[in-house]
């Protein structure tokens, strides 16, 4: 029988510890992997070169979602000149999608029009930040919201890198988050494209499987040399989005945030989330230990007293 001496014992212990640590890291690395989205989820490709700013999509969305009638009719183009706090129009509780005009110098076809709505991220920041799990990323690709459990903390609005979710601040009894749900309840669930896509007279948007849309977008860029910027906005941004954009002018010229990076927002939060289990497990032992150390004199004294 092999005698286990102190040195061998330590060696074995170290090796075992190292192996454990290695598997441990592997396990966490796997757990921390990104979700990347459902394989067959749907998406929309928006080609900014085709949009003429007719706002038909806004009208279709308004009707489909049963939103209140706007102050200015949908054929009024003066809304493009509206500026609030130095910002162009954005999504609100009454408009889940809006079109804005961007005047780009030296562009042949005139100004660029850009439709915004929820981009339906693959790993939505709103979803990961919600402490009552009100958001769901459906296998079809939509990010939907359950108003029945919403507490109204509005962290999702803070978290959204695209400034999309709106909140009905005006309601005292039942304020809720309002945003595009890709017409999930009425259309997407049944395999039909969102109302705005269907209504567009210019065929600006293509509805399809996200992975097919990426192929289509690359194809368009290749087949029209010099026309498009060689980038699909939304293919990789913040982990990828279901809605993606093609443009013939640099994206930052038409209101896109090009500094968002490709990491999903939750990646930035994970730095903190990883310390949570460590604090929970290490702190009790550490601080009880410190307590025993710092009180050892007193404890000894007590012991002696009880003996004597």
């Amino acid at each position, binding site marked *: 029988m092999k005698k286990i001496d102190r040195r061998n014992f330590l060696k074995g212990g170290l090796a075992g510890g190292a192996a454990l640590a290695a598997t441990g890291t592997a396990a966490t690395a796997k757990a921390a992997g990104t979700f990347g989205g459902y394989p067959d989820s749907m998406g929309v490709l928006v080609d900014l070169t085709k949009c003429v700013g007719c706002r038909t999509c806004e009208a279709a969305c308004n009707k489909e979602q049963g939103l209140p009638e706007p102050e200015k009719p949908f054929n009024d183009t003066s809304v493009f000149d509206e500026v609030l*706090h*130095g*910002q162009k129009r*954005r*999504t*609100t509780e009454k408009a889940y999608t809006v079109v804005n005009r961007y005047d780009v110098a030296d562009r042949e076809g005139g100004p660029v029009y850009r439709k915004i709505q929820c981009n339906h991220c693959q790993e939505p*920041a709103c979803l*990961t*930040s*919600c*402490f*009552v*799990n*009100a958001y769901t990323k459906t296998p079809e690709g939509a990010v939907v919201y*359950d108003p029945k*459990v*919403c*507490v*109204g*903390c*509005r*962290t999702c*609005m*803070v*978290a959204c*890198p695209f*400034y999309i*979710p*709106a*909140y009905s*601040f*005006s*309601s*005292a009894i*039942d*304020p*809720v988050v309002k945003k595009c749900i890709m017409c999930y309840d009425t259309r997407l669930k049944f395999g039909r494209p969102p109302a705005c896509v269907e209504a567009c007279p210019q065929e600006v948007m293509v509805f399809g499987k996200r992975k097919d849309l990426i192929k289509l977008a690359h194809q368009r860029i290749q087949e029209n040399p010099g026309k498009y910027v060689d980038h699909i906005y939304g293919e990789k941004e913040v982990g990828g989005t279901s809605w993606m954009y093609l443009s013939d002018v640099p994206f930052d010229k038409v209101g896109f*945030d090009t*500094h*968002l990076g490709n990491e999903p*927002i939750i990646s*930035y*939060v994970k*730095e*903190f*989330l990883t*310390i*949570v289990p460590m*604090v*929970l497990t290490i*702190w*009790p032992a550490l*601080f*009880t230990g*410190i*307590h025993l150390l*710092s*009180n050892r004199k*007193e404890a000894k004294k007590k012991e002696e007293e009880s003996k004597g």
Partner: protein
Amino acid sequence: MNRLVGRGFQPITSHVKPDGTRWSVKEKLLLGLTPKEYMAVQMRNPFNWLLWIIYAIGLPVLVGRFIFGLGWATHGSYDYPWGLFLAWGLFTMVPLSASGFMMGTTVELFGRKDFKPIERLGLLNGLLGYFFAVMFLQVDLGQPWRLIYPMFVSLGPAAVLFLVAWHVATYLSCQVAELVPAYAEWMGLPKAKKAIKSMVLGLTVAGIILSTLHQGALGALFTYAPGKVHPLWYSSPFQWFHFLVSAIFAGLSMLIVVSTLSKWFLRWRCDDNFKQSLDNLTVGLAKGASLALITYLVIKVIGIAHDNDWEYLFSGWGQWFLLEMAVGVIGPLVLYTMAVRNDSAKLARFGAFMAVFGIALNRLNTALITFNWKLYQEIPHWREVVIVITVYATYIVVYRAILARLPILYTWKEERN
């Protein structure tokens, strides 16, 4: 009351009246005065008149917020979902209330019994700060009646706010338990006190864990908005650590501030033990706070270096940042260090007021002022300011009422040995 005591009035410090009969609860609540005397004392206090004015304006506005909604009371918008209620009420109140776990740790865990005279004040400061942070949250939430949803109805355990909610709730009960002895002495319930005493170590360790995580989590909440908070106030890997370390000196400084205010305005309630040891303890707290401050300063610089944010220092935001660091960190650090070297409680108190101001500035900067730095500046609605003042005034009223009664600033006679 200070004047009354000057004329020879004896505040209640035991169950038994000077003539040998026992105080009733009603008499204890009235501080041993007759109802008429009590009212007269209250009316004489100019601070109470200020409170009446605040409530006359503030209460209708507060009620209005629940009738007409957040849109009426605040400038909360789609771009600025959070306003002053959270920036002040949650992000500033919670670090200033870190004194609870700091004092619990110092006295119960590290065995520094010399801090005992100020321990309960630290615990109470923690409890009330957290309680009113939750009150501020209730004013801010869209549907406050759903506050318990993240606990029992619909759980989102992967969210940082989920951790904050659970930890603040558990920690609140933890702090209530830690203050049961003071209440038990005052009411004459020795069994309750004994029960808590047997688990005080567990409560204290739980307090450290919960505080580490939720103070950090408040910082981590902003890591959901990496592009929105200005880089000088934002750092993905360090945000939670910045918030945790700054909470340590924030809590200690706030304790110096409230003990100073108690010494001035509630002098009649402080016993000799408290009054005589306070200067020494203040310097002791300053020592702890200065260590946290230097740590904070270093990791702040490391944070800037790690994210390579140096160039921002030369922008307008950079000047603002340097001002915050000078007034809120370096200033108090110098004052605290001088206070420790010269054994001067006066300098420490000056430093504490500065540090509390600095921490408020830091949290307001992170949550409101530099938030959306690429967009535009939001100015809070006047009603928002009025509501914050009203709720904070209530915090002061409750704080003062408890200090005047429970054995926080003085030792209960039957407990002296």
